């Protein structure tokens, strides 16, 4: 496993573009006002097109947005919500009602004021979404993260004053860093990590900084801005706001337009294609395609612009977009207990009921971090092979490479009858294909940790033993006395699965952490220790006789799920 080669004395890479004022994210922020104007007009044009330029449809959408926004304000009010929003929507309501009454237009019919309301609504969202990047906050935050984490790390390890442990010792990065740094200068990077914890954003932020890339634009849930301090930092670090409560057409399209336009402007972007944290602990296999679609569209537009500029068929100078899959793996996940609980409730419905009233999983972030560092646990961040938006691998120069090792001109995927054309349905299909390629890459890039292996084997042994008479939900309620697995059997099966994984790793189908090699007993102990550090009810533990048992089947299932999809079940 190739770990990063530490570059400067903090163990970090130097910045690929040393001058902050040259960063696309800085330039975008400097150019904020005209950018927002362009965002408004582009969004409006796009929405009009979606509504077939129909006045009636526009009127209906305004009414729908008003209805949805009023429900949201009534049922889900957040501290971060602007104080004037109630007034704004009241005015929208009054305008629609007033015009209708005054002019005798029946309710539900388009009015002269629709166009103005349309502009105001889109403008409101267009002003709300973008953040403001501040170089000073960036420099400050970067130091805090590097220094603060190092202190925490060393304190937890009992050596406050020595810089013995650095963040890089705990957060390990694998992948072709040099290539990623090269590509960051040659095109626009879209980083797409798997998502299992709220800590992921923090880890990604650190990693991007550590490998010397400028900050990435990142759509942060608006709920994170409820905390003033956090919100202050997020906003000034370039995060833009994503409000998942707002589901009306105007908001969603303005948001998508924003993400497309920043990609077109060359701002590296990050989003979690799973849309939300993986509830069941598994690698994402169904992606939210909305923001991926922005990347496909931005690439097409870059090519269209490129060909117009060169007045020919050559789109090779157009800015390329590189998609960078990332898999984050933790030995234990901060929110594991509540995530799996939520997943089981949703998927099991009446079959799933909670045995106990209180769930012992909710812990404070600090406790988690403390335990994480004290236990010398590690987080592995694995960068997958960069790909173009069609999933082809990329060489160091940024060329797309086909299955035979030849360079291909991907602009031609947008060519129809000799010219690059806009075709929304085609873009959607390319986006779906990109989603599939990402899922495949996640599987290959996943770095298996000992904790995943021990959980997978234990759960599958129990499933094999009791699965004939019990469904999943029955299995999760298995009485404690039925959860014991004799150690010799357990070690044998675990070794068998580990060896299969090693074989798969040799074929490039998955990656293994360094500790996955060597003596199986040590590996099992490593897995059990790491899995057991954080949770009070241990997903997996030795019983007094040295056999293996589980105190919490839900958590065991959660960690087990990280290895589903590799067809390893048949080995049990």
């Amino acid at each position, binding site marked *: 496993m190739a770990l990063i080669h530490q570059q400067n004395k903090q163990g970090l890479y130097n910045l690929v573009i040393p001058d902050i004022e040259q960063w696309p994210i800085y330039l975008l922020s400097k150019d904020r006002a005209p950018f927002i104007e362009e965002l408004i007009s582009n969004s409006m044009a796009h929405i009009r097109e979606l509504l077939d330029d129909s006045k009636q449809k526009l009127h209906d959408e305004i009414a729908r947005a008003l209805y949805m926004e009023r429900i949201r304000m009534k049922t889900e009010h957040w501290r971060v919500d602007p104080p004037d929003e109630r007034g704004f929507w009241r005015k929208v309501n009054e305008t629609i009602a007033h015009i209708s009454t005054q002019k005798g237009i029946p309710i539900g019919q388009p009015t002269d004021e629709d166009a103005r309301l349309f502009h105001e609504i889109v403008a409101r969202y267009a002003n709300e979404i973008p953040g403001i990047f501040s170089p000073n906050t960036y420099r400050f935050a970067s130091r805090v993260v590097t220094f603060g984490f190092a202190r925490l790390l060393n304190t937890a390890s009992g050596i406050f004053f020595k810089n013995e442990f650095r963040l890089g010792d705990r957060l390990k990065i694998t992948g072709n860093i040099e290539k990623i740094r090269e590509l960051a200068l040659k095109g626009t990077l879209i980083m797409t990590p798997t998502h299992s914890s709220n800590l992921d954003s923090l880890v990604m932020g650190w990693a991007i900084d550590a490998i010397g890339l400028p900050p990435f634009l990142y759509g942060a849930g608006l709920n994170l801005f409820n905390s003033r301090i956090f919100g202050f930092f997020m906003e000034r670090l370039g995060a833009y706001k994503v409000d998942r409560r707002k589901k009306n057409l105007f908001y969603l399209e303005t948001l998508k337009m924003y993400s497309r336009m920043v990609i077109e402007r060359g701002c590296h972007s990050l989003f979690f294609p799973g849309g939300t944290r993986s509830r069941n602990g598994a690698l994402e296999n169904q992606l939210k395609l909305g923001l991926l679609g922005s990347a496909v569209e931005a690439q097409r537009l870059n090519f269209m612009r490129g060909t117009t500029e060169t007045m020919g068929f050559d789109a090779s100078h157009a800015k390329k977009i590189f998609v960078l899959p990332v898999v984050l793996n933790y030995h234990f996940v901060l929110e594991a207990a509540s995530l799996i609980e939520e997943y089981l409730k949703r998927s099991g419905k009446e079959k799933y009921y909670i045995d106990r009233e209180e769930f012992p999983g909710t812990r404070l972030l600090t406790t988690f971090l403390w335990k994480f560092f004290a236990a010398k646990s590690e987080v592995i961040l694995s960068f997958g092979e960069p790909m173009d938006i*069609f999933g*082809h691998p990329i060489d160091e120069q940024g060329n797309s490479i*086909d*299955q*035979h090792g*030849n360079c*291909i*001109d*991907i*602009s*031609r*995927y947008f*060519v*129809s*009858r*000799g010219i690059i054309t806009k*075709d929304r*349905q*085609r873009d959607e*299909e*390319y986006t*779906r*294909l990109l989603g599939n390629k990402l899922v495949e890459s996640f599987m290959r890039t996943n770095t298996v940790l000992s904790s995943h292996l021990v959980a997978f084997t234990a759960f599958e042994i129990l499933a094999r033993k009791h699965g004939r008479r019990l469904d999943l939900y029955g299995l999760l309620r298995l009485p404690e006395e039925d959860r014991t697995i004799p150690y010799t059997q357990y070690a044998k099966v675990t070794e068998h699965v580990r060896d299969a994984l090693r074989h798969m790793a040799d074929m490039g189908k998955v990656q293994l952490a360094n500790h996955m090699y060597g003596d199986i007993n040590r590996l099992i102990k490593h897995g059990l220790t790491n899995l057991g550090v954080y949770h009070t009810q241990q997903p997996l533990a030795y019983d007094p006789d040295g056999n293996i048992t589980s105190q919490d089947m839900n958590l065991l299932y959660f960690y087990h799920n990280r290895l589903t999809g590799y067809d390893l079940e048949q080995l049990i």
Partner: protein
Amino acid sequence: MQHAQEFTYGVIGAGSFGTAVANILAENGHVLLFTRRPEACREMLTQRTNRGQQLHPHVTPTIDIPDFCNRCRLIFPVVPSAGFREVMQQFSACLQPHHILIHGTKGLNLHLLPGEEIHPGQPVSRQQICTMTEIILQETVVLRVGCLSGPNLAKEIAQGQPAATVIASRFTEVIEQGREALKSPRFKVYGSNDVTGVEFAGVLKNVMAIASGILSGLGLGENAKAMLISRGLGEMVKIGRALGADSSAFFGIAGIGDLIATCSSSLSRNFSVGFRLAKGELLPDILADMNEVVEGINTVKLAKGVSLYYHIETPIVEALYQTLYNNQTIPQSLNYLMNYSFDKDADFL
């Protein structure tokens, strides 16, 4: 003939259906008809006929792959499924992202790991099967792919009789361009987004065509044929569903439409095999005698494997499998079918 100057369409494979497709395309543009065999190319150039069909003046035979790929944007591969991958590998270096491929091959390939083998009668999973569309995606850089399927008996098309077909693709532009290229007063082209459904329907109907040939060869009447078609369709739907297809395609042109045509016509190769089997000929002799590939023989084996893997009841497939691969006599197979405990009509809906 403005179109003829603007567009050059390509057809890979100069079999009888490939030639028929080339002739239809030629009504809307120039067509390059690729054949692997130089002597066949020479013959077409001199004789202007192929497989008993007169070549349209706009059809130009060729063996030159780079030139073919340079000149054609819309290409129709119509080659037997057994050689499909190899042909795609040959074309791969010359195919580019702007190409659109619409194949017209009704067959499946096994996709096995190195060293893996599947013997007759062994279960077969979806992962071990490749459709022709999947082969194109695996072997080339082309993404805009579609398939052409339907009741398209080459001889009838060549005679200029009216016919309908389906172009299935996930890309609307592929359907549109395919439709435009094939438009003809005698050829009605429908569109579908369910590529998998259309592909599996077209493939699985070959199994039933062999069975229908057997019934005909035995001299059985329309009642027996109707029974076969309706129950056969049910088995096709079940297998298709197990393989991940939507069932709607099975009720369209490429499903029931194609099934009726091939189950009723002695022009169908699969039908002929069944007919001759019922007349007492042996399978190896029949196959040695056919000058084109009979897709249904291989499909029976795969359908049997899929039924085993997914635990689907497919008595017609089973009876045919036993006849073709295990020397079960035709009367024994018929007896098996008539005594099989079907209990519910239309159980696939």
